[in-house]
């Protein structure tokens, strides 16, 4: 390629990039109008692609909860609670388009009664099933007669003759539990309090990423109205996935702004101080803006949506992507006489190498099969590349004047000469001190692989949900049983084998309760067995009562009505909350889920797990433990990878610098150990994200050592290192403010690591004469 051809290639490439940036801008405008943002922490974790039954179960359980909002209004007097709940409901209803009330329709109840009535003979509670065979028929007759003569209706849900022992009412009562209807409100009593339960469905499919919390605000206003209406002290708690999602979005908005704008401001300030011209400042900001936009765009195109944690993580990219622009201007400042394009040609190999190493370091994060990490890796790689291209293609074109020399830049550049070296006896003492700090910190280091590290729900929302769970006995979404069988009836029978064991745990008080389709829809075998248990006893009661009353009370032996079947039951409106438990046919097998409520940290999960091992077709699933195990596994794997990385870098340095290679690597290694030790000292847990931070630290930190080696005692290089390190430090420092523990850990590790490597690298720099 001749030099004139080269002259023409530059503007063409710059224009091509301009067209791409234009397309990017348009994409960003459309994206942010209705941002496809993902808030579900589970979406960051590996799915169960290899286990379609478990995948369906997790998906259905999650889907059934995504729009539900539950509100509990409680107080000492029902009158207050009822008035408050009604005022609450009215306030919510007055604002259409936010939350739609999930009222209970009498039609649904009648439909259920009509469905079960022909087969009520086939329904028994576990207690009845246990007690009926041993009961004394004469005694049963006596209490049945007492009911017949009692004031008020003698029948229950069916006539006395069809159910003389009123067994079916008790069956319903068992299903109703503590919950009833009062003043048209769902009501129950718990903890010496009256509670009204209000259920809503969120109507907002997407939430705005503007930091506002619409649902929470509406609930707060409704709560205020309720408090006024109650004229007393009432307690209001609410929970539900939409509230978490909204809170996460609002917080993420704040964090992205803090981290992104904070590091942008820092970069702008540093660039201004170092170069004293407006244009470098605007151009560096431009390269960062394009980088961030490209990160969002490529992630959205590849994954369909962008996760909030990716966005927060991505905001810290500002601190890394500014390197290219700063390097360019640092060189321009040093040699203002050189034309921009030839300067860029001169810088290109170094900048490209820096880009490749950084992108590789980020992509290494994506080695673990966590969709979330891969998204972050893609976001960072795309963002860095776009910032790099902007610098390379546009800066020489838009750059009009070399930056001025500044006192600030001179002072920093000159500081290298005075930087202390670690050597001799004093060096030995310093090294010993550092080793003590490292040893002490590592000894206190606590490993935490729990899923909690990825969640950052507000504590008051979690406390609120805890209160709801203790009043309503909500099932745990993370621990459940998976049942598998060849057909529906076998499936129901296997569920029953399991629930019989669970019922004994409930009776012993080990478990608050469980939810299973077979509670509502027994297997045909159980329906037949229960009917066969009931019928002779009821016949006897009818005969004895008839003899005493001089009546003929036997019921005509009807042809056995059609047994209750899952297909019909699932159509019922009342089955709606339980439909998620019925998985249907997967890989030729019928599947279902049995959920548990009232699990706590003290629950004996091992005992629950061992129940499954003794039953055929029953599997215990503990998602929390599995995810924790997975996070732990990858923490270990990535630690191994980081060590391999050190080995590889050491070999590369050995090849380039020979015997003195340790001077370039040791600062990073020391900084890595010290930053991990500091986590121990301040009590932050060590986890997968801390290891990932170490990978990135290796990528960034070794560069400082290399630069100091390559450009011995070169003030311009030292200036670039300082400006770069300061902005990187600030970006990750701001990331450590995140409320998401994983991101905080990542930010803290890098904050410590970068600061240490920045301070330590010059201490090990070689003598200029060496």
């Amino acid at each position, binding site marked *: 390629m001749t030099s004139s051809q080269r002259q023409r290639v530059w503007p063409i490439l710059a224009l091509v990039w301009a067209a791409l940036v234009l397309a990017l801008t348009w994409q960003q405008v459309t994206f942010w109008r209705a941002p496809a943002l993902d808030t579900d922490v589970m979406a960051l974790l590996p799915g169960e692609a290899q286990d379609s039954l478990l995948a369906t179960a997790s998906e259905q359980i999650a889907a059934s909860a995504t729009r539900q909002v539950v509100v509990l209004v409680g107080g000492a007097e*029902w009158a207050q609670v009822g008035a408050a709940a009604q005022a609450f409901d009215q306030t919510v209803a007055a604002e259409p388009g936010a939350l739609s009330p999930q009222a*209970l329709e009498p039609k649904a109840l009648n439909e259920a009664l009509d469905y079960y009535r022909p087969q009520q003979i086939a329904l028994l509670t576990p207690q009845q099933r246990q007690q009926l065979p041993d009961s004394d028929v004469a005694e049963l007759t006596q209490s049945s007669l007492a009911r017949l003569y009692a004031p008020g209706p003698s029948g229950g849900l069916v006539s006395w003759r069809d159910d003389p022992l009123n067994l079916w009412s008790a069956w319903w009562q068992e*299903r109703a539990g503590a919950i009833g209807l009062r003043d048209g409100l769902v009501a129950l009593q718990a903890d010496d309090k009256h509670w009204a339960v209000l259920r809503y469905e969120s109507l907002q499919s997407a939430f705005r990423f503007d930091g506002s919390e619409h649902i929470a605000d509406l609930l707060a206003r409704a709560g205020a109205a309720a408090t006024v209406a109650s004229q007393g002290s009432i307690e209001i708690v609410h929970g539900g996935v939409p509230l978490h999602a909204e809170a996460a979005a609002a917080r993420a908005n704040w964090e992205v702004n803090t981290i992104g704008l904070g590091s942008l401001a820092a970069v702008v300030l540093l660039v201004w101080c170092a170069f004293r011209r407006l244009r470098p400042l605007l151009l560096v900001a431009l390269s960062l803006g394009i980088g961030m936009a490209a990160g969002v765009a490529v992630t959205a195109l590849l994954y369909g949506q962008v996760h909030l944690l990716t966005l927060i993580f991505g905001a810290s990219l500002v601190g890394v992507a500014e390197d290219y622009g700063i390097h360019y201007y640092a060189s321009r400042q040093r040699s203002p006489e050189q034309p921009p394009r030839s300067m860029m040609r001169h810088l290109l190999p170094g900048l490209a190498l820096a880009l490749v190493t950084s992108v590789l370091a980020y992509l290494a994060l994506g080695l673990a099969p966590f969709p979330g990490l891969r998204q972050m890796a893609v976001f960072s790689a795309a963002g860095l590349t776009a910032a790099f291209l902007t610098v390379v293609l546009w800066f020489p074109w838009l750059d009009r004047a070399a930056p001025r020399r500044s006192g600030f830049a001179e002072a920093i550049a000159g500081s290298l000469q005075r930087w202390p070296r670690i050597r001799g006896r004093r060096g030995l003492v310093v090294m010993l001190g550092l080793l003590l700090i490292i040893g002490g910190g590592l000894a206190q280091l606590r490993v935490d692989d729990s899923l909690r590290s990825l969640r950052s729900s507000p504590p008051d929302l979690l406390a609120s949900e805890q209160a709801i769970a203790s009043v309503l006995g909500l099932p745990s979404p993370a621990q459940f049983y998976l049942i598998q069988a060849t057909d529906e009836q076998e499936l129901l029978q296997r569920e029953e084998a399991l629930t019989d064991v669970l019922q004994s745990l409930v009776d012993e008080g080990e478990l608050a309760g469980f939810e299973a389709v077979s509670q509502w829809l027994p297997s045909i075998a159980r329906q037949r067995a229960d009917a066969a248990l009931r019928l002779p006893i009821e016949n006897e009661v009818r005969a004895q009562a008839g003899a005493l009353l001089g009546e003929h009370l036997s019921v005509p032996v009807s042809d056995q009505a059609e047994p209750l079947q899952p297909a019909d039951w699932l159509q019922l409106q009342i089955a709606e909350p339980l439909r998620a438990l019925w998985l249907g046919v997967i890989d030729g097998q019928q599947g279902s889920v049995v959920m548990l409520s009232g699990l706590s940290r003290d629950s004996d999960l091992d005992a629950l797990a061992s129940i499954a091992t003794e039953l055929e077709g029953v599997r215990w699933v503990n998602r929390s433990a599995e995810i924790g195990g997975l996070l732990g596994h990858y923490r270990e794997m990535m630690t191994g990878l980081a060590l391999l990385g050190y080995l590889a870098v050491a070999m590369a340095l050995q090849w380039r610098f020979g015997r003195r290679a340790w001077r370039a690597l040791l600062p990073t290694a020391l900084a890595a150990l010290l930053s991990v030790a500091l986590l121990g000292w301040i009590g932050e847990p060590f986890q997968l994200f801390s290891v990932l931070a170490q990978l990135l630290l290796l990528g960034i930190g070794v560069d400082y050592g290399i630069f100091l080696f390559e450009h011995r005692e070169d003030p311009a290089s030292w200036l670039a290192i300082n400006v770069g390190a300061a902005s990187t430090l600030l970006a990750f420092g701001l990331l450590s403010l995140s409320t998401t523990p994983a991101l905080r850990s990542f930010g803290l590790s890098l904050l410590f690591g970068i600061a240490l490597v920045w301070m330590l690298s010059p201490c090990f720099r070689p003598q200029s004469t060496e």
Partner: protein
Amino acid sequence: MAIRLLLTLFALWVVPVPAAEATDPALAEISAQLSSSAVLRGQFQQSKQIEGFRNPLRSSGRLVMAREHGVIWETQSPFPSTIVLSQDQLLSVDTQGNAKVLLSGADSGAMGAVHGLLMALIVGDFAQLSAQFAIEVQPSDQGWALLLTPTDPALQQAFAQIELSGDEFVRQVRMRESSGDRSVIDFGELQTLPEQLSAAEAQLFD
């Protein structure tokens, strides 16, 4: 969970509302006549016509209504049996005095409601009844007569109509159930004294 509300269909649900004043002046007049003593004792005669039974089921006995506690319904004929409806449970007490809990409403609040309806019917607590029923004053030769039609959907499942009549006391309750069953309860020898429960009576409420 929604299904749990079916409980209401057999629990004779009544809401203890804050006493709404009877707005109908005729009703207010009747209300003013009624005794408001703390304890009411008397005899009852009940006749129930139940689907599948050729003959009505007749029974009689005595009852004690204590506003603060509940109702003792002591059937003497044809079989001696006692039912005690108290704030939190429904007890059946056999001839030996052994109590058996038929329904415990400790965790549902349901029993308070059952007890509430029965008490409201016996003492003629119109403020409470009007929350669940549309009350219509009927012409009557002596005393007063009321027709109660349930407005509450849960109660509509159980009752079609209830007729009440009386003077200073409620003398008769006629219930027409949705199932077609009917019953008539006549009260007699009603007394408001002594105003204290006897030790034996009080024991049943414990």
